């Protein structure tokens, strides 16, 4: 994998890209919609290198931590701080999100309750098995890459007949917000970099409408620096050829039809629902929830959580515009002042993959 990050390879790819951007009248704006893509750009210092050759990378709504609304975080915090003998398991980055009730990280659990950070939803099941006297709730947040793993975990719990396991879900689909963004027409996007691992699950087809109906080029790309540059190269080729398609630049991992087994388990366990995206508002059929048959494994119904959507962001927060790529983080007046990683005001500053957090960490002050 080191080869995919190697200086000489990157330099060669950048040189190739520059030949293609030189011929264009102005710099191009490419949106990626995956927190891990955002991370790669910044972790390897690619943002400046790309800007220098006329490619502006915009971070879209690809960070599940950023788009999960306040009310869901608050529900998780309520569960573990008010109810005794609860084990709330969660992915690490969800714990830092500040809500009006604080964050999971600073929350003090009720007696006998605890917040446990897990790497895999499987670990939550193990917690449930080894702690039959406690209620285990998995804070299941993710896009299509993670959704099948969560669905499988619930299915396992169902077949085992576990009664002390459930999920507090925040499951998001990538294609609907993409549609919302291209239909909003607020920004000029010259191309999309599609998330490589979401694509291993859903394949190429769900993005076709962006090329066919809106004429915007796109490429499915992996997560190593070279992978992203290969994706950008394909987009530039499409721009030069005046055609728009969904090219697969991560073919070593992504099959055109995705992962049938993963899609099947999603179909079996989950159904679509309208969902409130932080910063983007209500997007129809953009989320997933457990089917009624599995409502005993849905923490929301099991514990009567009554989560009311659409509470909105804190006043003055412009994360919505950042998530849509309308403004860049420094254009928000709160950026690096009232809102910074140590006291994040909005979701984009909280997650390690959030556009504002990443910009703050990696870009600020670099000459």
């Amino acid at each position, binding site marked *: *994998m*080191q080869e995919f*990050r*190697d*200086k000489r390879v*990157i*330099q060669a790819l950048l040189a190739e890209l520059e030949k293609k951007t030189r011929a264009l009248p102005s710099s191009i704006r490419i949106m990626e919609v995956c927190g891990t893509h955002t991370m790669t750009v*910044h*972790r*390897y*210092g*690619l*943002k*400046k*290198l790309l800007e220098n050759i006329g490619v502006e990378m915009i971070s879209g709504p690809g960070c599940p931590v950023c788009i999960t609304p306040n009310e869901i975080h608050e529900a998780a915090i309520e569960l573990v701080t008010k109810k005794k003998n609860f084990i709330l398991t969660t992915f*690490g980055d969800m714990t*830092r999100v500040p809500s009006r009730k604080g964050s999971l*990280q*600073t*929350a*003090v659990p009720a007696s006998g309750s605890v917040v446990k950070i897990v*790497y*895999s939803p499987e*670990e939550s099941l193990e917690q449930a098995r080894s702690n039959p006297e406690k209620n285990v709730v998995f804070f299941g947040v993710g896009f299509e890459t993670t959704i099948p793993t969560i669905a499988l975990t619930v299915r396992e719990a169902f077949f085992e007949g576990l009664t002390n396991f459930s999920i507090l879900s925040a499951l998001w689909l990538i294609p609907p917000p993409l549609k919302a963004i291209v239909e909003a027409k607020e920004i000029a996007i010259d191309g999309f970099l599609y998330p490589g691992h979401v694509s291993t699950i859903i394949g190429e087809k769900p993005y076709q409408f962006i090329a066919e109906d809106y004429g915007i080029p796109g490429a499915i790309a992996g997560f190593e*620096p070279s992978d992203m540059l290969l994706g950008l190269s394909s987009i530039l080729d499409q721009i030069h050829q005046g055609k728009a398609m969904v090219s697969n630049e991560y073919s070593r991992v992504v099959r055109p039809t995705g992962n049938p087994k993963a899609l099947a388990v999603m179909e079996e366990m989950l159904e679509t629902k309208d969902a409130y995206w932080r910063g983007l508002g209500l997007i129809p059929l953009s989320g997933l929830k457990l089917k009624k048959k599995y409502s005993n494994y849905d923490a929301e119904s099991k514990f009567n959580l009554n989560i009311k959507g659409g509470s909105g962001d804190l006043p003055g927060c412009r994360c919505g515009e950042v998530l849509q790529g309308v403004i860049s983080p420094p254009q928000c007046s709160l950026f690096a002042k009232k809102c910074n*990683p*140590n006291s994040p005001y909005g979701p984009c500053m909280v997650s390690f993959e959030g556009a504002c957090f990443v910009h703050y*960490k*990696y*870009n*600020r*002050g*670099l*000459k």
Partner: protein
Amino acid sequence: MKKKISLELGSGGKLMRDFIAQHIVKTFNNPFLDELSDSALLPRQIAFTTDSYVVDPIFFPGGDIGTLCINGTVNDLIVSGAEPKYISLSLILEEGMSWEELEKILKSIKKSAKKAGVEITTGDTKVVRRGQGDKIYINTSGIGKILTKPSIKKIRPGDKIILTGTLGEHSLAVMLARGDFGLESTAKSDCAPLNFLLPFWKEGVLWMRDITRGGLATVLCELAEKTDFSLLIDEEKIPLSRAVRGATELLGIDPFYLACEGRAVLLVPKKKANELLEKIKMDPLGKKAKIIGEVENKIGKPGELLLSTCSGGLRLLEPLTSELLPRIC
């Protein structure tokens, strides 16, 4: 709602730093404490430090809480320019803890103390009810003889940063011992006393720090903030073992923030860097040492820590804001 103490307060991150600045320093206010260095540098050439050890689990590949409680405290003295001499040992035991485990730990403490050249001269033992502790907590305080005082003010652009060995082995060892994720690896804790670095204080070393909670990035950020310059380190020069490389990639963890317990970073004058590096490499604990970067005044802003990435870009590193893994030391 009454304010309560959260776990995050003890994490070594921002919340803890704020707590110390706003409550501890303010309440106890004196010139020694205000320095907030790893050891207090007292009159009559005495250096004094203390640390509590709550690592979970208490045994891990390459060490245990006993090895940690000596080496951690000894290293705090060494990196402050002092030769460690005397240790106090306070044990808080939980009712029901096994004798066998306690004996193993005492043996580790004896072995580590011998290696580090220190004597256990005083201590205390308490036992708390089952459920009110977690097997064993240890506090050690250390007294050392000041050989030289670190001289941050002498730092100049071009001065070099030496890292004595590979990063993150201790964190990985603790993760392995917890049995998280079914992780299997050959990694062992790097827990060790850094006595071999003491002589270098007299050979021009300007500043030293052992890399514990918060990892390399946090330690160097703290240094950068104390100077009028920026620090630039090269990702390709940072030694990482295959085991740590594998585990951090798999788990999505950044090795620059992983704790070690036997690694240090030194700031040395440009002219002496190569010579000192060779000497450090002669010790088994320093054989993987490398010059990983230098003090800058042309790139970035004063007080910044910058990383030249393996892909040829530039990245700003910030101190760890919150704990990656709890109770690692």
